[in-house]
Each structure stands twice: as C-alpha cells, then as structure tokens.
C-alpha cells in the first residue's frame, strides 16, 4: 500500500504550511513583474529597505521575548492576582498583562487557570486587555510609527484595560455571583 510515502508527503506539506502566505505574496510579485517590472522592482526594494530598517529592533524584540518567557513566572503571577480585589488589584492586573508574553493559545489557558482559582472576570478582562500593550514590541512600533504614537497607544490601552475590567464585571454580574459568594467569607 501507499502507506510509506504518505507520511513524507504529509510532513513536506506541514513544513510548507507556514509559508502559504509567502507563496501568495510571491505569486503577487510574479504577476506584478509581468505587468510592470519597474514597479515590481520598486516594491521589492521598499520591502527590503523596510525590513533592513527595523532588523536590529526585530532581533532585540525576540531576544527580549525569550527573557520574558523564561523569567516571568506566569503561574505565580496568576496565583497572586487571584487573591486581590479592588482598584489595587485592577492596577496590578494591568501591570501583569503588560509583562505577559505569549500567543493567544498560551494566554487563554493561563487566564482559564486564573478563573478556575476564583479570579474575578473583571481582573481577567483587565489582564487580557493590558496584554494588548505588547511591551516588548513597543520599540518596534515606535520604529514604524514614532515614539509619540507608541507611548500614547500604550497609555490609552492601559487606561482602557482598567476601565473595561469593571465594565465587563458588571455586564457579567449574574455569572459572577458564584465567585462573589466564594470570596465573601474570606473578607469577614
């Protein structure tokens, strides 16, 4: 049967999968090169120049990403957040979200474990929203859009995080009741 060549073919397809978008763009370039070679060349040189301009930042961003990933203890942070309430908790959650690094499929399970430990939906929303600050990426953003833009967006995103937490908490009030009951005895 054709079972032995199949895995090889599969793994080749798997290897090429991330490059789908690259192939699509390459195809666009091919079309452009046929219809207007001069402009296609200009487009390619803009692409290379743009990348060369930010290459040092890109390298630094990923190096910083690695540091954050290894040295920030996500689980400890999650435990810490679950134990607090009120404005200090929101600010702490905003700070925590800011230094969180990782793709969606890492962050959501982490937030889920926070939820399972009784963290309120307000705190979870604030953490998740502050995660959009993307602290390690800020220099890259500044490289493209300027420091003023980057810092303004960061400050406004953090403000949004602190506002959206309690707002979501209110909107989800009915669902959060169980948690309120769970944490109440601790206060008394």
């Amino acid at each position, binding site marked *: 049967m054709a079972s032995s060549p199949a895995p090889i073919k599969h793994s080749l397809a798997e290897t090429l999968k991330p490059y789908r*978008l690259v192939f699509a763009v390459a195809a666009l370039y091919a079309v452009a090169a046929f219809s207007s070679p001069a402009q296609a060349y200009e487009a390619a040189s803009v692409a290379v120049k743009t990348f060369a301009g930010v290459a040092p930042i890109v390298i*630094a961003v990923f190096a910083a990403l*690695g540091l954050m990933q290894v040295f920030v203890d996500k689980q400890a942070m999650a435990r810490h957040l679950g134990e607090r309430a009120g404005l200090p908790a929101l600010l702490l959650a905003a700070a925590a979200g800011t230094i969180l690094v990782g793709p969606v499929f890492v962050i959501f399970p982490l937030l*889920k474990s926070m939820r399972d430990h009784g963290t309120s939906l307000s705190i979870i929303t604030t953490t998740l*929203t502050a995660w959009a600050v993307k602290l390690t990426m800020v220099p890259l953003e500044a490289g493209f859009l300027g420091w003023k833009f980057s810092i303004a967006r960061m400050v406004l995103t953090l403000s949004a995080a602190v506002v959206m937490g309690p707002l979501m908490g209110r909107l989800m009030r009915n669902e959060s009741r169980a948690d309120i009951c769970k944490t109440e005895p601790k206060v008394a």
Partner: protein
Amino acid sequence: MDLTGIVYLAGVGIAYAVFWRRSPERSKKALSAGTSSFKGMLPTFIAVFGLVGLFDVFIPPALIERWMGSSSGALSLLVGTGLGTVAAGPPAAAYPIAATLLKNGAWAPAVAAFIVSWILVGFISLPMESKIFGARFAILRNGLSMIAAAVIGLLMGVVL
C-alpha cells in the same frame, strides 16, 4: 542606522548579561525561546514586508485617503477598526502595514484604531475564548474592545 534599534539591542544585551550571571541555563533557555519564536514568525514577516512593498507601490494613496483619510472621519475610524478586527496575525505584522497606511494619507486615529483592534479583537480566537469563558463573555469583550479601539483612536488624534 536607526538609533531606536541600537539602543534597544544594547538594552536587551545588558539584560541578558545581568540574567546570565544569575542563571546561565535559564538565559540560554530564554535565548532559544526567542530564536524559536523568531523562526515561527519568519514566514509571516517575509510575507508582510513583501506585502508592504506591493502596497506602497501599487495601492494609490487616493484610495487610502478616501477610505481612511481624515476627511472621511467616522468612516475612516470604522474602516480602521473593521480591518483590524478581521486581520489575523502577530502584532509585529500590524506595525509595518499601519506605517504604510499612515504614509499614504490615512488618518492617525483610524490607524491607531486599526492597531488596537488588530491586537485586542480576535475573530480567530473567538471560539477558544467562548469555550473557556462562555459565548456571552467572548462576544461582550470583543464588542467592547472594538468600541475601545475606536475611542483610543479618537483620543490618539487629540494627543498627536
């Protein structure tokens, strides 16, 4: 060469030196984690920078100005938020696209809304979010985030 890049690179270098003294093994782990995320992102980077070049040359600024220009006001803001909502990908890919939009006459608040909704609103992650926190939470949070993106955009216009 760009100063931001050099300063940032130097800063990260110093951070590594400090962490290396504390724990060489974990620093090595950090370095390899960074390398592997870079490798994972490389195809996207190649594609996005390629797209930025095409965009820059082939998309007429008039088109961008019409849909995302300052004279279109609310429409620009809506288009920026909408584009960011449907776009999927790492935030690092959003910046070069945003810069091209800005350079070709897009309104700064619309571009800011585009970036914020790109990062904050996830159509792709909606099923995952619903599964973990419930559909009500996921829809409300993404909806609020879209509003937040537009408001942040507007406020950026005031600041910048």
